[in-house]
């Protein structure tokens, strides 16, 4: 699925986006970004799925009127989302994500908004090459479905080298409140050959 018309002109989201965002203010900054992201999805009546370890501060900030259906907002921990088997598997991860999106769409939602924090990757010492290969392939997968994907990285956990990997694997960047095209992004194939 190719890029479509902008659905959220105020930020510049496009259907099939795979966006990275960085935060450095701890959980408060993370929650601000997540709340803003899923609020937009809920207002559009879309399914929203969050992969964060502490969902309650986010859930508490979502007005009830934005959740007409009980399943419209769904939370998973990062481990549930990324390493459900206790270790990270790129293929399993991508497959699960695709299955999840298909399930949402089959449940009657037009679009799905996915947001996840990657802190568990640093905490659990997931192999970075494998992880960013999965991120790179996710950029290939995302445009195939009516979805918006945002990956969050804590600048306190990831150093500059990792940041450069993030930039190489996400075609779009959420920075300073706007989504811009990432000129440093390289295709999944280029990433695989350069890695």
């Amino acid at each position, binding site marked *: 699925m190719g890029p479509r018309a902008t659905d959220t002109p105020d930020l510049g989201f496009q259907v099939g986006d795979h966006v990275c965002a960085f935060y*450095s203010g701890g959980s408060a900054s993370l929650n601000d970004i997540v709340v803003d992201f899923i609020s937009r999805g809920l207002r559009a009546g879309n399914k929203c799925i969050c992969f964060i370890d502490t969902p309650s501060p986010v859930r508490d900030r979502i007005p009830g009127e934005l959740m007409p259906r009980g399943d419209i907002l769904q939370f998973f921990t990062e481990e549930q989302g990324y390493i459900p088997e206790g270790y990270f598997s790129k293929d399993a991860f991508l497959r699960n994500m695709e299955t999840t999106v298909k399930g949402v769409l089959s449940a009657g939602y037009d679009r799905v908004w996915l947001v996840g924090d990657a802190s568990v990757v640093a905490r659990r010492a997931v192999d970075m090459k494998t992880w960013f290969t999965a991120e790179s392939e996710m950029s290939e997968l995302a445009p195939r479905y009516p979805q918006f994907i945002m990956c969050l990285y804590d*600048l306190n956990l990831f150093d*500059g080298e990792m940041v450069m990997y993030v930039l190489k694997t996400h075609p779009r960047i959420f*920075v300073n409140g706007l989504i811009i095209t990432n*000129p440093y992004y390289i295709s999944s194939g280029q990433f695989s050959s350069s890695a």
Partner: protein
Amino acid sequence: MTSTAPGASSASDLELAINTRLSSVNAVFTLSLILTQASSPAQVMRLVTTAIPSIAHCEKALAWHPRRSGDYYQRAPDDVSDALARVTAPGRFGVGDSSSWSAFPLTSPIADEPVFLMVAGGEDLSGEETFLLSVLAQLCGTVIAKLELIAAERSTAQRVAALNAELESTISTLTKIMEIHRRLNEIASHAGETGIAATLHQLTGFGVLIQDVSGQVRATAGGVPGDRLAAQQPGRRQDLIRRLRRARRAVYHGRAWLALANPRADVLGVIALIDPARTASETDLAALEYAATVLSVELARMQSLAEAELRSRAARERDIAQARAAELAASEARQRAILEAALDAVISIDQHARVTYVNSAFEHIFGYRADEVIGRELANLVMPPSLRETHRQGFARYLTTGQTRILDQRIEMTAMRADGSEFPAEVTVTCTGPSEEPVFTGYVRDIAERQRAEQELKASRARLVAASDAARQRVTRDLHDGAQQRFVGTVINLQLAGQKWESAPQHARQFLGLALRDAQRGIDELREIAAGIHPAILTQRGLAAAIDALAARLPIPVQTEVRDQRLPAPIEASIYFFCSEALTNVVKHAHATSAWARVGLEGNRCTVEVSDDGIGGARPRSETSGLNGLRDRIGALSGTMDIISPADGGTVLRASIPLLSESACPD
């Protein structure tokens, strides 16, 4: 890391080279965008230094400062610090034996000395890489400068906010303190300690206890545990007060905040804010301390009032004492004046029986001057020698045992004058003063005259009794010899007349005539006797008529001059009999040819005078003579009688009788 292709000759090589350089440029710019998300200079520098090996051909990157270390840079090694400080543009920089270092100054509008981004690698950086790293260093410096400015602004804002909060808190505190001052000032002047305690309780919500310096409770308000009301041991109390005095502000002790009320050097009291949980705020403590100040003023005011009251009381007592002293002095003066004016002799002696005071009457009665007797023993002065030893023994017994037979009693004894003459005296002795220094005062009255008067009274009464007996005997004799004989003759003549009434009526009439004569004589004689007892004319017509009738019966001419005025009956009777007796004596003894009787009034006295032109020389011949009888009769009415009867002739008897009220007259 992407590979460089400096010598590409084909189009693909050229494209790859372009893409590679473009990728590096993109890397720098996207990284610079990400750096704007960083929250601290250290985070920025960490991201940059760890990202550089991904951007350029190098081994590592560091941040150095020539002189010092900081939160995002390290102090350069000493051997390069001077050289580094002199670096002004990006370029290669030798460190020790290695010359493969490059230094990139971080431009910063706020840093005095630049921090350098140091890049170390085995290969030389290309010109493009050097340029990109220079750009990255400048971007890094700019981002750090922005973060530092933001941090400074944030710090400033926080300080301002803190200052505003502090100012607001200060204003709030001042407002509360002003309210505290206003409330406490309002009650200070009239509500006293109780009001201060109640107001402090209202202001703080804590229980309040006010104690004096010894720990006695003076006022409470709110909840005050009972154990706090108990007085503290004095020693511990003093220790606590010393501690409070040193602290000069509220001190937390024994689950309460304590403050001293000490307006000057004195400690007048302690005020306590009961705060077991120690939750009192600064405002509460300010209220406590100001309440202590107000309490100080209140206690000082009360102390001043008490002192003023004491001074006033002392002044009043002094005035009273002075008044009492003056009164005592006046009393003593009056007493002295009374004693001096007394007719009785007054003598005071001490416990040694020595004279300490005598009055004027003493000098007059005893014939001593005061200065002659002061300090001398009393007995030697006023007692006959025969009584002195008895007096001394009695005096000593009283001092030893308290037994006395004369104190506070009126006794009669013989006293002795300065010339040795003795006289009867009535003495009363009192004892005054403290037991260890008693003062004995005797009041001595010369009763010689009174005894003579009493003896005279007794004699007068005896003469009255004798005169009364004589008069009764005379009346008896007169009745027996006179009227009784007449009436006996009357009875006999009437019996004889009765015996002759039938046989000899002539004789019977003679006897009746004799009986009538005797009866008439008897009546006349009874009248005479009655007139001697109390003449009827005196009662019926008064003194003038009675004396005229009396004079008419005498054989010599008597001229009367009697004021025709009724007087009390006893006085009229006495004057009548005075005149009767006196005129009888004139007829019997004076051989007079004429006599005079005069009765008049002189002031409140009645005077009567009977005189004659007889032989004179009249005087009472015995106690029972008629003249003494007259004197007794006049004396019975408190009157006086004088006899003037010179030997060359003529006699005057004169009496003067006070006109007493009838009720006071003897019946």
